[in-house]
């Protein structure tokens, strides 16, 4: 906020003008509506007294508003006579002598000292000219400010009541109005519905992301939409969380605290840049043969950043690995992929005995909620343990399900689980998969969700699935190469690879 300054002739008609201009100026400040109203009232009262009652009469008056980190200051100067009563009033207020306060009243100035007891009123003389200066300081709210956007007024009323004790809440029934206010005022978080007329939640997020001022405001979707496709589209926009309606107050408050905490820490770390060593350390790799399984891995690094990683620790965990994908893109995703891989390494290297996939994900989930580094982002993971007799044990934390292709066709493995760190207690389930025939494919969303050059988005996934099915007659090495050729060709047409792509194909040795 820039300092406000207005210098006018001491006339009644100018009082209203100053009051209106100060009110407009304060609209963007982090003051509650009642404090803004009090400032406007006090301003009117002081200026009216200066115009009507100062002796000798004031000919000029000026108002300045400025701020530091904690306070907003209102500074009123006039060249009329000094109000001795006001000094007395201020002294009365400081002594809490309410009885005397009201006795001294008579000029309508008593409530100035009541509303703002720290008011200062001094007489100054510079170059032979005497002026009066009144300084009122108002402490800014330290509550975080949240914009809630939903076209359903009943949901807005519930949200306001849920949150107003802990946060400054602004509710918007119209996404257009929300966009307008978000671009001019300061907010710490946006919570938005998805399905809304004209501008839906996804468009709102895209608009905010496209503006420098609003691109970094943390964003939570609160939607009744439980479809994986919609959630995935939302997550790809770089959101901080996705909650399903109806939401309990307790759950909402936990998620808001976590997101605001993450955001603050994330900002502290934004200055960090990642070097090539981190990218190399994360380059996904697995042996071509683990026990009785043949494995092929293909990966491509995004043009900028990207957050895929494979964790494989042969010394303690020779028969298993984790495929991870950090949500969002860019250098930050790469950094957090490194942080997650580091956590998993520490977890498994220090394990006293072999542990199952669900244990890795449960541990990661606890850390993603509590750990000061891991809780700054979201990750999806597939944990795989290779067992005897062509069996695999798989657990998923919000990751795309593996695809199994055999002579009967192509189907998705029934493996699912929530994102790490979003629930207070995670209990990931493992799925046992027989791989006597055919092959299993694990991949990150970069493989199926890259834009298709010159075609609708969904055709990329269809094409990938077709290639997976038709590749059943090829070796897994040939099939992987065929799939990656298509990805490379598409990326070349697009001119960039927007996200990391990782593909793992596994089959049992026969």
């Amino acid at each position, binding site marked *: 906020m820039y300092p406000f300054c207005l210098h006018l002739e001491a006339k009644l008609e100018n009082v209203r003008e100053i009051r209106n201009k100060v009110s407009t100026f304060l609209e963007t400040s982090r003051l509650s509506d009642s404090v803004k109203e009090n400032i406007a009232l006090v301003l009117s009262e002081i200026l009216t007294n200066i115009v009507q009652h100062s002796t000798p009469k004031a000919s000029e008056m000026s108002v300045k508003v400025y701020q530091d980190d904690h306070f907003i200051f209102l500074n009123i100067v006039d060249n009329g006579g000094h109000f001795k009563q006001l000094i007395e009033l201020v002294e009365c207020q400081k002594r809490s002598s309410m009885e005397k306060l009201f006795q001294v009243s008579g000029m309508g100035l008593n409530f100035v000292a009541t509303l703002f007891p720290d008011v200062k009123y001094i007489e100054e003389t510079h170059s032979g000219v005497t002026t009066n200066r009144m300084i009122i300081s108002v402490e800014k709210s330290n509550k975080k400010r949240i914009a809630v956007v939903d*076209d*359903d*007024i*009943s*949901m807005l*009323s*519930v949200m306001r*009541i*849920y949150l107003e004790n802990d946060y400054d809440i602004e509710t918007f029934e119209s996404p257009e109005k929300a966009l307008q206010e978000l671009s001019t005022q300061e907010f710490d978080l946006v919570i938005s519905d998805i*399905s809304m*007329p004209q501008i839906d939640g996804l468009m709102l997020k895209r608009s905010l992301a496209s503006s420098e001022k609003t691109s970094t405001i943390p964003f939570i979707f609160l*939607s*009744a*939409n439980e*479809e994986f496709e919609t959630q995935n589209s939302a997550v790809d926009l770089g959101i901080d969380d996705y909650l399903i*309606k*109806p939401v*309990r*107050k*307790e759950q909402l408050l936990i998620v808001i605290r976590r997101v605001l905490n993450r955001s603050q820490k994330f900002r502290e770390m934004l200055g960090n840049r990642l070097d090539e060593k981190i990218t190399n350390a994360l380059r996904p790799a697995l042996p071509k043969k683990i026990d009785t399984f043949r494995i092929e891995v293909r990966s491509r690094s995004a043009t900028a950043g990207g957050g895929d990683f494979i964790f494989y620790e042969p010394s303690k965990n020779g028969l298993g690995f984790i495929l991870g994908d950090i949500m969002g893109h860019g250098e930050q995703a790469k950094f957090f992929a490194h942080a997650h891989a580091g956590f998993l390494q520490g977890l498994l290297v220090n394990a006293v005995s072999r542990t199952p996939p669900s244990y890795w994900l449960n541990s990661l989930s606890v850390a993603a909620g509590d750990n000061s580094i891991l809780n700054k982002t979201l990750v999806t993971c597939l944990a795989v343990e290779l067992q005897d007799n062509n069996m695999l044990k798989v657990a998923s934390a919000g990751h795309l399900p593996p695809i199994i292709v055999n002579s009967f066709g192509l189907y998705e493995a029934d493996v699912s689980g929530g994102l790490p760190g979003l629930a207070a207690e995670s209990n990931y389930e493992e799925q046992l998969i027989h791989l006597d025939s055919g092959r299993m494919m694990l991949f990150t969303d970069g493989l199926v969700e890259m834009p298709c050059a010159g075609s609708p988005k969904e055709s990329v996934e269809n094409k990938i699935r077709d290639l997976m099915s038709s590749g059943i007659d090829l070796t897994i090495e040939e099939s992987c190469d065929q799939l990656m050729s298509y990805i490379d060709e598409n990326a070349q047409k697009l001119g960039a690879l927007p996200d990391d792509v990782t593909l793992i194909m596994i089959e049992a040795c026969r």
Partner: protein
Amino acid sequence: MDQKSESLLIDESMIKQLENDTSSELMPSMIKIFIEELNRRVNSLAACIEKELYDQIEKESHALKSSAKTFGAVKIADLASEIDTLCKNGSFSLVSEKTRLLLEHAEPTVTELTNKYL
């Protein structure tokens, strides 16, 4: 509607939960707002079903399923959820029937909310 289906209109435990999360003093004003919103969407659904505006029906039912669930109006929430899914799947032949069923349940739902909580 028979007695049994009427008894399933409102889940009182959900309203109790909402009251615990907010306050008993504020409940009547919140329920009033919900009733206004429910009436508005029901009127819109009634108009849309005549004109077979399935996109709009999907949007209204989608919004209604979450607000109705928040306010314990479980029958409306279930029907709205069914209509939302039918619209998304393109099963439009069943949408009319379910929407008319939802419209039938709206008034008794409002009556029950009004009698018990306002």
